[in-house]
């Protein structure tokens, strides 16, 4: 059986530094995977690799069982993978609508924007797909939103463009408690719609709330891969801390 996304024996070196060694794991359809590990374990390199920013030195990726090589971010986006970084993904000086459609604007054949249509869609996505508290209009500038609201906009963008996997890189580190709850609920809601998520974090408690499975990395490779039912927080902590 082929999984949605699979890493096969991936290694990645930057000159003399080996960031990843023989890393293999998979992400199933509608599955929430927690990618855990201490600083320097290779989580960020893995994210960059899946989103197409880095190319593996050795090994390969498969999407739906088909071998693929991502050479840039738009390749991974085309395969349905959306990476949501903490800060970099949005333009503060543009409205929510314009951010959602940035680079993928709806236009007439002369390139002029179909503003009302985009606004209506943004409104609908914000209201139905993503529940963001405190946003009353898609015309709000993103710069006026809180950290959690910004991430929600980035997620709304992924949802609208029918992404299959969300890669959330340290999504909760800058969020308030309430925003964190909202974000984690969002992940579960998307799971119900068969969207997979990878939660890259070193906050085991947040991961434990929503993830179905945990992949723990240390020194560039996988040291533990376990379903939630078969583990406990203290066991996960031990693996992160002691390996």
């Amino acid at each position, binding site marked *: 059986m082929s999984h949605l996304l699979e890493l096969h024996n991936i290694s990645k070196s930057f000159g003399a530094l080996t960031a990843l060694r023989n890393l293999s794991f998979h992400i199933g359809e509608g599955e929430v995977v927690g990618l855990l590990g201490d600083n320097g374990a290779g989580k960020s390199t893995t994210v960059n690799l899946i989103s197409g920013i880095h190319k593996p030195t050795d090994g390969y990726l498969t999407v739906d069982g088909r071998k693929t090589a991502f050479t840039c971010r738009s390749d991974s986006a085309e395969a349905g993978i959306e990476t949501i970084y903490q800060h970099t993904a949005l333009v*503060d000086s543009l409205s929510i609508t314009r951010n959602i459609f940035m680079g993928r604007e709806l236009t007439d054949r002369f390139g002029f924007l179909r503003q009302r249509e985009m606004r209506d869609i943004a409104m609908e996505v914000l209201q139905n797909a993503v529940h963001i508290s405190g946003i009353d209009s898609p015309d709000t500038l993103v710069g006026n939103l809180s950290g959690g609201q910004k991430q929600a906009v980035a997620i709304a963008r992924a949802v609208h463009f029918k992404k299959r996997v969300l890669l959330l890189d340290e999504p909760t580190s800058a969020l308030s408690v309430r925003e964190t709850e909202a974000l984690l609920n969002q992940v579960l809601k998307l799971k119900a719609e068969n969207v997979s998520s990878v939660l890259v974090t070193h906050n085991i408690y947040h991961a434990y709330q929503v993830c179905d499975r945990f992949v723990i990395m240390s020194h560039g490779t996988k040291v533990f891969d376990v379903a939630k039912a078969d583990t406990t927080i203290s066991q996960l902590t031990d693996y992160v801390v002691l390996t």
Partner: protein
Amino acid sequence: MTPILAESAAPRSRTQRQSILKRIMATPAGAILLVFVTLQIVCIAGALLYPDDFRYLSPQNLTILMKAVPVLGSLALGAGVLMIAGEFDLSVGSVYTFTAVLMASLVGAGLSAFLAAPLGILAGVLIGLLNGQITLRFGLPSFIVTLGGLLFWRGAVLLYNGAVQVRFDPESAFTSLFSGTLFGINAAFIWIVLFVIGFHFLLHRHRFGNHVFATGGNRGAAEAIGIDTNRVKLIAFAIAGGMAAVAGILATARVGSVQPGQGAGLELQAIAACVIGGLSLRGGRGSIVGVFLGVLLIHTITDVLLLLRAPGFYLDMFIATLIVLAAIFNHLIERRGLA
């Protein structure tokens, strides 16, 4: 019941008034629009009260204003688009002179002005592309690259033409197209209004404009989403160069000659108009209407000071104060936006 209703109605209307003011201020050109309208009201009231001493509304004065706006307007529109994309062009004043000299001398050599003018624009676009290529290829600050351009093209004018003025004798159709009058309105002013409308739609209603704002606002995010930011910036550089040449055409058609030193300082006035109009020096913010209002404001203040027979240095001091105040205001808006 009644007193409660009255009490609840009063604050609502007050907040409504506040929110209208707030809403105007929140739009990209709102603050400058308020300043501009206020200034116009004061000027018009002054002109009506003292028609003999303050001839603001006299036909001669209005004609002078309409003739003065288009040149700085063209320069500021081009420089403004580039500024929103996150880059500067300090060379527009020199490019304006160079392309005007080029066009005038081509016409002097017997070429039709209807061919020479597009060639001038082409030269401006190519110079803009060159500025862009050097800036982007080597990852340099455009401030430095176009400072080089400012000096280089100023020198090139003297090399090509010497320090003498060039006469511009186009066919009369060309002159009336660019400096005639239509329904009493100066043709160059109509052109600049058309450019403002065109640029407004390009920047605020077109895909390209969205990419310009994204590129200037957060280049990393724009690239992550798949926008070719180098291409966007390169086109913006080309627009800045092309609009400098357009300014040259409008000025030359009006005056009938080109002075080799005429563009000096205009690049700074263009950037000043942009800043007064609400553009951020960091890029990604602002509006075309704001830039145009910035140009109108500079020329209105110039005009008022001239009408009041104030010495020339007052003008510089006024514009300087205005620039700094506008920059402070923009900075406060940005900070509030980021909070």
